[in-house]
């Protein structure tokens, strides 16, 4: 449901209400409405992913505690996912190139780089699909344990974001092929780019927290931090 709205908002913005009025009064901040909207929306999306990531972190290690295999340490394939993370990062580069092409009025460049970005995004999604099915065959599903539930929900919501991004890029590509994206419409591409870069950055965070950080140390640091805070407060209270 939420994802539908993003598309909604994004498109409402992308072809927004100020379309084609060169003489429209300048905005108070100097920023275009749609650009500001995208930034505000991304702030909201930060909280969205923040809640999901927090959920994941709370249940991190829960599968091991209860002894419900498969455990993340045995099932996560870091080299494989590093490769797909690299693909997604590269798509940010092609996105930048697409924007710079349209800003220079290079329509052919725009189309090539949009297509490349959408393709890289699709490769990432394909990789995720393969990873999910692989895990499923190894016995990890939403229902298996807390790791399965929180992992699939977190990466699944991210995948949904990437999917929307790919659809958006393909829509732009389609419009461009019909001559609908002019040099002065470069903001349309820039907005898609903002969204795309955001989704990439979120993946870096997820990749680090879910895949890279080894599975024992985190809980210790957490308890350590809480114990420290508790000690400080206890001694403050003791003074009174």
């Amino acid at each position, binding site marked *: *449901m939420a994802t539908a709205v993003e598309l909604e908002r994004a498109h409402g913005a992308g072809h927004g209400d100020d379309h084609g009025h060169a003489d429209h009064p300048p905005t108070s901040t100097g920023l275009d409405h749609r650009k500001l909207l995208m930034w505000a929306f991304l702030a909201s999306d930060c909280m969205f992913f923040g809640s999901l990531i927090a959920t994941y972190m709370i249940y991190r290690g829960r599968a091991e505690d209860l002894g419900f295999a498969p455990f993340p340490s045995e099932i996560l394939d870091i080299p494989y996912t590093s490769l797909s993370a690299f693909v997604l990062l590269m798509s940010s580069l092609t996105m930048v190139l697409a924007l710079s092409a349209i800003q220079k009025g290079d329509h052919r460049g725009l189309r090539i780089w949009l297509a490349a970005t959408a393709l890289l995004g699709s490769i990432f999604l394909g990789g995720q699909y393969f990873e999910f099915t692989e895990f499923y065959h190894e016995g990890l599903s939403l229902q298996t344990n807390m790791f399965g539930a929180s992992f699939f929900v977190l990466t699944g919501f991210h995948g949904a974001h990437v999917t929307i991004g790919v659809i958006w890029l393909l829509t732009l590509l389609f419009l461009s092929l019909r001559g609908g994206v002019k040099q002065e419409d470069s903001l349309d591409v820039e907005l898609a780019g903002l969204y795309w870069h955001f989704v990439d950055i979120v993946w870096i965070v997820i990749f680090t927290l879910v895949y890279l950080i080894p599975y024992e140390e985190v809980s210790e640091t957490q308890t350590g931090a809480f114990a420290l805070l508790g000690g400080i407060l206890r001694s403050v209270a003791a003074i009174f």
Partner: protein
Amino acid sequence: MASVAQPAGAGAGTQTVARPAFKKESGLWSWITTVDHKRIGLLYGVTAIVYLLIGGLEALVIRTQLIEPNNDLITLERYNEFFTMHGTTMIFLAVMPLSSAFFNYIVPLQIGARDVAFPRLNAFSYWVFFFGGAILSLSWLANAAPNMGWYGYAPLTERGFNLGRNVDFWALGLQVLGIASVAASLNFIITILNMRAPGMTLMRMPLFTWNALIVSILIVMAFPAITIALALLSFDRFAGTSFYIPYIYDEATRQIVARGGDPLLWQHLFWIFGHPEVYILILPAFGIISELIPVFSRKPLFGYAVMVYATATIAFLGFGVWVHHMFTVGLGPVPNSVFSASTMLIAVPTGVKILNWTSTMWGGQLNFTTPMLFAVGLVSQFVIGGISGVMHGSPPIDQHHNDTYFVVAHFHYVLFGGSIFALLAGIYYWFPKFTGRMLSEKIGKLHFWVTFAGFNITFFPMHFLGLEGMPRRYGTYGEGSGLQFWHVVSSLGSYLLGFSFLIFMYNIAVSLQRGKKAGNDPWDGATLEWSIPSPPPVYNFATIPVVRHRDPLWEEKYGQYEGEGHTEEETVETTIAGFKIGEGQAPDEDAVEQAERRAEAGDEHNIHLPNPSFWPVVASLGIFLAAMGLLFSYPRIPIGALDLPLLTAAGIVTLIAGIYGWSLEPAS
């Protein structure tokens, strides 16, 4: 000079240019397809008042059930539905949209804009809200009204304990309403940041607009938490996860099996949303009051800058106090101490506001019109709610107060004595702007006093009930418990309160027909909305005004207005801010130049207004259908094999059609 209810047209006349002709649309279709912020504001307002009355009736049923011990007017199950729906309705369908109505109607007028930044997104927000409300209301017809409290603590919401669709109506309804709120808020943020008239720096914005901005930011930042919380709940209910389920019972082996979920995750996620939500409900009220008190005291707001910072501080701290809803869950003394401290801290900026409002009145010429009565009523009643809030900000005391009627009394003093008083004040204040006619002052004053008495008789005894140990959400109580007396008082008070709303409705009905003509500026207002006709023309401002002062209209009417007072105020700004938000008094040179150039070029002939559009309705209808599909064939959503209910599939197609139609349609 001293007269306040000025004759029609006596307000300051900026409308000297010839008014451009825009034909006025009418008829049902024009309301469905409208993208005019004023019409959308009215739609929000009318819908919200209908829900306010429905929520009120639900409250009267609750009060009637409790008027005697062991009453069997309604069953306990029904009672649970009533209190859940009362809370949900009042919060999401009455107070929030009523605030949204004022944001929609007033904010663009106060900042000198012709519409909001994204008019169609605005229409979309309203219709999604409308359908979200419909989902919740339809639950009554499906005999599956939500029955687990507006805060829906897991695992009571899980299928093991709540097999029916009650929870699903609630979860989907809130998801849909969340979409509406976030979309509307994004729109307001952009509108306020980007569409201010030349010269209106942030620190010249009316406080109501400031509060609208801050509330919108709160909504945008807080709602994702409940979106995720509800999504995880739905996964638990339909996809076999156990995010909030620590144990399940295996019927086959007759064994309890650990699953590893934690019900406290729900509480954390919910209250990370839920506490900012409290400020989402009350800050618009503070904004309205901050407009009214200066106008009816004929004095500028005392400590404008501090009021802005106080609002921002409340909003910011609002994200750091959620655990005070969880003082009894046993998080331990350390977290409880930290959150007790932050809770008490938040009382400081709130106290500052109370004292600043009173100081605004100090030395003024107070004109006790109906809106002013409600405003001063708020200042006085909110203090009661604020003080009892500090009381249960102390965790040991909260171990007694929590989940008793003391808390019910507390938050009704905040939300009724605060929010609803202010919203009523706002309706009395801006009704002339909405309709061109004044509400009757005579009936209005009667309305105020009956509301005031009914409110206190209903809710003050709840403090006593709480101290006597009456828990919340009890549909019955024992005969020997000694509680009946105050229950009866409270119930009688609630009937009086209900009656006060009849007076209010009567006032609206009569005044719409026979109310005094208002003219542009019936209250000697200070802000831009009073410079234009009532009701405003479609395009609001024939010429976009240039703002040189925080109270632009007073400056225009009383000249020489920005005198002594200002230097001191600016000192306050700079010392407390530490950095510059709103700079000097002269409007930005460029902006004025541009405005003048536009005026010379004949701005009034160059007004672009967005075209009506039905795509927002189509898109929101798609969301509604998708949600209904999930509700009426709900077990069939296995993840993986896309076995969607038909209605949901149709809804998604409609939604996508709406989005693409909207995207490709020219805006104006």
